[in-house]
């Protein structure tokens, strides 16, 4: 059984790196949306599958989730979550230049529906944000970490997260979850990024960060 062993000191080192990576992710999101984006200090926790779902809003909370797995020297899962309303707001910002000014959104008023253009834009938000995070962590590992093409779903948090968590908790009851919240200036748009490394990747990460054995 792979046990999740991470001392407080090791957690602090990982947390510092993840903080910088989350900041890069926020900057990437800001650059893409043309808005100021504030990134809260990420919370790094060792927790159970149920805890992660609670951190994300609870099992029935509906989100638009942009998911990518990542592989290479660090393996795991990344999810960028928005409430459907915030996802619509973000999509409107991103695609407004591509539509005639008078053209209404084909899905205006339909909270859980997104058209192809909106989904594509949000997929790219996930791609850019998750890649920015992974590039920063990958610099320390001296080896790129490759994300899969992002997938977008609108679903209950529990349903989105359980497959991901099941992949992590088969052999260990705890996962290491890093979560942060982005807020865009002006009209608030809150998003949450979760990064869930696979337990067997953690020693590699700690070694690369100079935190092995502490």
């Amino acid at each position: 059984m792979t046990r999740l062993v991470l001392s407080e000191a090791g957690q602090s080192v990982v947390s510092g790196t993840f903080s910088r990576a989350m900041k890069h992710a926020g900057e990437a999101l800001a650059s893409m949306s043309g808005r100021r984006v504030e990134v809260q200090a990420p919370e790094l926790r060792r927790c159970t599958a149920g805890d992660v779902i609670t951190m994300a809003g609870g099992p029935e909370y509906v989100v638009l989730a942009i998911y990518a797995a990542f592989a290479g020297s660090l393996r795991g899962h990344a999810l960028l979550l928005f409430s459907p309303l915030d996802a619509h707001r973000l999509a409107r910002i991103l695609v407004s230049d591509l539509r005639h000014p008078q053209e209404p959104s084909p899905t205006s008023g339909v909270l859980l529906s997104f058209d192809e253009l909106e989904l594509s834009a949000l997929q790219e938000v996930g791609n850019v944000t998750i890649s920015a995070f992974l590039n920063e962590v990958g610099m320390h590992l001296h080896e790129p970490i490759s994300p899969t093409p992002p997938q977008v779903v609108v679903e209950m948090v529990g349903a989105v997260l359980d497959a991901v968590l099941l992949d992590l908790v088969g052999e260990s009851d705890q996962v290491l979850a890093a979560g942060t919240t982005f807020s865009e200036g002006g009209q608030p748009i809150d998003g949450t990024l979760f990064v869930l490394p696979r337990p067997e990747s953690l020693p590699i990460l700690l070694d690369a960060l100079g935190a092995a054995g502490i």
Partner: protein
Amino acid sequence: MTLTESPTLLVAGIGEMVLSSDPDSHLVAYGLGSCVALAAWDPDRRIGGLAHFMLPSGPTGSGGPVKFIATGLDTFLQALQGEGANMSRTLFKAAGAAAMLTLGKGISIGQRNHEAILAAMAERNLALAANALGGSAGRTVQLEVADGRFLIKSLSSTTEI
């Protein structure tokens, strides 16, 4: 796990099970994706149970009492019988095992859970009276202990099976 008399809403979290003979109680599992919820209801004794399985199998001693179908199903059945349910007349219904994300190569955890619950039930000569397994939609399920109604809610609809 013992019978709970007073609460009206009993929640089976991931890897957990709930049992009740209180006719006012509803047994609920929220936001199922790849997980499987198995509902059991004895119409004579009016005892209900709901188990929220995570995975087909895995190492013993980790997670909740019904984390794995391979070991947790017997735990669930024994708990039901311990409370007086008769397996020969108990109705079983299942939901979940969806696949909404492609996590990698090979078959999805949802598909593996789907196959595992059917196989585990068949091995014990038990059948599902109804099921809503598979697909790509998340589900919240609710078993009403008074009459055995099993409701399945997704983002688009609520159905009874």
